[in-house]
């Protein structure tokens, strides 16, 4: 099925099988998102892409586009919800951007810039989280994980390996590594895996690649995520 729907009053086409967020992206309309990535099965966990479809709130990344839908995305109320969700992600982890290799190329930061986030609003959790530097080529810093599940999906669906999983619920949830020791070095991840490339934050980093592009000249230093995320999304989502 294909046809047209309206988003923020603009009529756009959609193709069979597309979600609302994908139809919007193809039509050049940015809906903020963190756990969605083109080519990946939707996960619907970050809720940043929440929109009204025919008057009801739903995740644009999981909701199938359909004829004559009335989608509302860019309202002060929804942007405020997105801002608060993003601030929660910052205080629930440990995000010290000045000491993060991913700074400037980080989608969490990019979304925060887009939402004009100037402060973290909530009290900080400062949770105790580990850094797994055991692997010779890949670093896993749990402090920066936002549980978007993209590495889980990449490893499972694209690399055929199942290196990652999310365990626990609520504030106790954590990213775990599928190896006897729980450490990355004992898993079968390799540097060519999509799972090493997909993380939207600085939680999974390929070693010895940081600072190849100086801070100040990186993606979101030069161009807002709302522009970079359109059409050729893979250009900024490594």
């Amino acid at each position, binding site marked *: 099925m294909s046809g047209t729907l309206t988003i923020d009053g603009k009529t756009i086409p959609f193709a069979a099988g597309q979600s609302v967020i994908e139809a919007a992206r193809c039509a050049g309309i940015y809906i903020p998102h963190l756990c969605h990535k083109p080519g990946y099965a939707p996960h619907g966990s970050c809720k940043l892409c929440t929109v009204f479809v025919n008057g009801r709130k739903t995740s644009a990344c999981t909701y199938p586009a359909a004829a004559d839908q009335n989608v509302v995305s860019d309202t002060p109320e929804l942007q405020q919800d997105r801002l608060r969700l993003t601030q929660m992600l910052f205080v629930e982890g440990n995000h*010290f951007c000045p000491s*993060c290799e991913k700074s400037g190329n980080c989608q969490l930061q990019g979304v925060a810039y887009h939402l004009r986030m100037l402060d973290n609003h909530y009290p900080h959790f400062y949770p105790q989280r580990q850094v797994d530097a055991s692997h010779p080529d890949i670093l896993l810093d749990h402090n920066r994980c936002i549980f978007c599940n993209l590495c889980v999906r990449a490893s499972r669906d694209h690399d055929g390996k199942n290196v990652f999983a999310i365990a626990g619920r609520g504030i106790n949830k954590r990213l775990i590594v599928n190896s006897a020791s729980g450490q990355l070095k004992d898993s079968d991840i390799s540097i060519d895996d999509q799972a090493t490339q997909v993380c939207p934050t600085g939680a999974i980093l390929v070693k010895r690649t940081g600072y190849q592009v100086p801070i100040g000249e990186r993606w979101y230093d030069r161009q807002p995520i709302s522009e970079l995320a359109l059409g050729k999304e893979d250009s900024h989502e490594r």
Partner: protein
Amino acid sequence: MSAKIKIATTSLAGCFGCHMSFLDIDERITELAEVVEFDRSPLTDIEHCGPCDIGLIEGGVCNSENVHVLREFRKNCKTLVAVGACAINGGLPALRNFVSVEECLLEAYRDGIGIDNPQIPSDPELPLLLDKVHPIHEIVKVDYFMPGCPPSADVFWTFLSALIAGREPKLPYELVHYD
């Protein structure tokens, strides 16, 4: 009666980089000096700030003195601005939040590499360390936030120009950075 806008600035648990960045507005500082007067600030050596229009706070809250200074600023400044990453989220000083105060002191003053005369400082004049470093909004109400580590000179200029002119400060996309 002075018609000048009164500004106070201070550094709590920070590296002083935000103040240095402020000075990077270079010759624009003379333009600023036409309309503002500095109360407590490293430039004046005043110990306690009096009633002010704008208070700029760099750094987070890591000890009992920081709490007092922050409360004094809040009481005296009509508009309080959190300047830079440490004031906003604890910044790099908050990296000590993952170890206990005891471990932190032992590492810094007794067990660390290259320590000559190992002893934990205990002079009664020294402010007591808090168990965690806190961003300032967890202690007092903050009116505005200037992100950055440090915020660039242009951020200071854009922000202060607006506040002084009585406009709502707005930072353009290029000026908002967290690093």
